[in-house]
């Protein structure tokens, strides 16, 4: 997917004017968030559980290289193959090599953000390998030649009428306004595809290192069909999805659906430990795990490693006042919303996604909703700082001066006096020139503060500073 994050300001304005989009996204995010609140509120120890889940992810990240090696050992012991990919191109090359080795022409896959991230569909199509999305939402996206706009609800930007028109236009579906009939049409349409597919693909929501198990969650059952029937299963998973133990997994696998869709458990929690074993009647004969780095090891080594704790539930998107207004596409890449505003700059270079850290009111709703308590607002703030310091030396200098002025009570007081005098002098001077009686609040400040005073009054300095007043009125109170 082409990166268009730098066009956020532009895309967001267009999205804001799309009434249909705003209605669809507002409806879906409000519903999802309401459901999340309801199932979290029923847990008496919800906050302690969030910390238990967070602890599991942080421990996993601390031991990441060892856990990845353990995962590899256990997958291999179970008869599977593990391939490592530094970047998107290498991940796609691995997948294409597997297809060539086993002569695989037709695939069917379940939903995966990782395959979205590496733009796998395009890479496979270029090799003449057919790949069908089977999640209803992802299938709609594929038929529409669109991109998912939400981590767990890929077509929340579309309404029923748009889906109907698309199916009628592209798939010759008979007219219906009933979502159930549309869904039944797609069920029939995709049924034979599972059986005809040479290989199935999935992402991975968790990898459990101690047994070498890759876990996916789906509500529709498409993930279980895609990975049970074809002869070969390829799972593409980001390296940060690992957890050490089954107990850690048991906590996180329940926090994920509660936060994502407001379910107590996703309908199908499906785990794979290698290919079908001797005597097992079905399941793939070959199992491949492609471990994708694609910038994650850089995040790991930097100041934002906490972003790797994300379990991709989408709760932060559903509560974000910015996301709720503009939807996911405006963010210009695979991951939208608060976590996307961190991950997109980190994975693509901050200069290539400069507006995203600012696409937030820093209200903190995302942190509060996050099932693993990721400090999203703090990271957004630090990213803003990184951007300012790399981009604008003048700003950097001003902030240094600001910092210096605030570094001691004496400097602060002197600075305050000087500013007060200067603002009054400037007002008198300008007022005199223009024949008016100006006060300080009529002033327009010079760059870089001018933008601020364009639409606001500059607050006048008090005649007398608090320091001054305090010296006179202290009167025996402790200083």
């Amino acid at each position: 997917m082409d990166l268009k994050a730098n066009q956020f300001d532009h895309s967001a304005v267009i999205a804001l004017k799309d009434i249909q989009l705003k209605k669809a996204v507002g409806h879906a995010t409000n519903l999802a968030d309401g459901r999340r609140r309801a199932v979290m509120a029923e847990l008496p120890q919800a906050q302690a559980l969030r910390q238990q889940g967070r602890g599991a992810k942080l421990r996993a990240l601390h031991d990441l290289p060892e856990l990845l090696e353990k995962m590899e050992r256990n997958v291999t012991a179970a008869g599977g193959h593990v391939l490592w990919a530094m970047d998107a191109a290498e991940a796609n090359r691995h997948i294409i090599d597997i297809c060539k080795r086993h002569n695989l022409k037709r695939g069917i896959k379940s939903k995966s953000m990782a395959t979205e991230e590496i733009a796998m569909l395009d890479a496979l199509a270029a090799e003449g390998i057919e790949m069908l999305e089977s999640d209803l939402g992802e299938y709609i996206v594929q038929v529409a030649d669109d991109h998912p706009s939400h981590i767990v609800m890929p077509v929340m930007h579309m309404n029923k009428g748009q889906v109907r028109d698309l199916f009628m236009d592209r798939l010759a579906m008979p007219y219906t306004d009933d979502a159930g009939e549309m869904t039944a049409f797609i069920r029939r349409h995709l049924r034979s595809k599972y059986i005809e597919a040479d290989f199935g693909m999935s992402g991975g929501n968790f990898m459990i290192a101690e047994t070498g198990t890759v876990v996916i969650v789906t509500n529709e059952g498409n993930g279980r069909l895609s990975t049970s029937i074809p002869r070969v299963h390829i799972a593409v998973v980001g390296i940060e999805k690992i957890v050490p133990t089954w107990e850690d997994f048991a906590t996180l696998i329940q926090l994920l659906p509660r936060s994502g869709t407001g379910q107590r458990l996703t309908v199908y929690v499906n785990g794979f430990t290698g290919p079908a074993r001797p005597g097992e009647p079905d399941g793939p004969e070959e199992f491949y795990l492609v471990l994708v780095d694609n910038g994650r090891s850089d995040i790991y080594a930097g100041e934002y490693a906490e972003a790797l704790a994300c379990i991709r539930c989408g709760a932060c998107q559903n509560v974000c006042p910015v996301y709720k207004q503009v939807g996911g596409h405006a963010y210009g890449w695979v991951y939208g919303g608060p976590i996307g505003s961190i991950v997109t700059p980190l994975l693509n270079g901050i200069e290539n996604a400069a507006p995203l850290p600012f696409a937030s009111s820093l209200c903190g709703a995302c942190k509060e909703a996050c099932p693993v308590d990721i400090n999203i607002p703090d990271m957004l703030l630090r990213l803003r700082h990184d951007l300012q310091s790399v981009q604008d030396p003048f700003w950097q200098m001003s902030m240094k001066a600001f910092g210096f002025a605030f570094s001691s009570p004496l400097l602060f007081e002197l600075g305050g006096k000087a500013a007060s005098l200067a603002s009054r002098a400037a007002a008198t001077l300008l007022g005199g020139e223009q024949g008016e009686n100006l006060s300080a609040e009529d002033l327009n400040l010079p760059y870089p503060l001018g933008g601020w005073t364009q639409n606001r009054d500059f607050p006048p300095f008090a005649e007398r500073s608090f320091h001054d007043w305090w010296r006179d009125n202290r009167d025996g109170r402790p200083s």
Partner: protein
Amino acid sequence: MTASSRENILGKLRAARRPFPDAPPRPLSYLTVTVQQDETPEALLARFRTEITSLKGESFVVEGDEAARDQVMALLEAHQTRRIVAWDFAHIPVAGLEAAIKAADIEIIQPETHDEFRAETLAAAEGAQVGLTGADAATATTGTLCFTTGPGRGRISTILPPVHIAVIRQSQIVPHLEAWVAGLRTDGLDAIRQRANFCFITGPSRTGDIEMELILGVHGPGQVQVIIKRD
């Protein structure tokens, strides 16, 4: 290429200053996400039934093999079943069930997809109205059926047909997922290590992708019926 990427990734991770040195240690005892105060068999059964009903699944409680057999046969008849895909009957806890199904002239397919008749098997399995299985366990607080694969216990019967009927014994109901995991742990997680697949199934297949409207049976079974046989 692969070897070097492996070394590159692991090398970069190792060279980094370890994040989260103050991450909390592994808890000595984990909080369970869901809570079930009363763990008597009757309370577990009641909770399981409440949960599966709220998920739009169905449950039936029966006493003894004969009642269980009758219940399965009644459901098969209600679905106008001509063909089922099923587990090996040794793993379905109802005596005499296979004979009863055959006597009703219902075709039984136990799909085996690793031989040369794969295409024919799958085509036939696709035509089945019902999938019939046992289960490894069920969890009360989430209304979940737990499965692992093994000889005679495949995946297709749980997912391909429009209806899934599972028969369990009441004693297979555990309080919650954590209890099931604790059971695996006492055996050193062998049930996971030695089997290719585990699956938790919690109610019928569902989607909300079109305007968040709940639709059942999008790819997997739209009906999940659990028969619980009292011990």
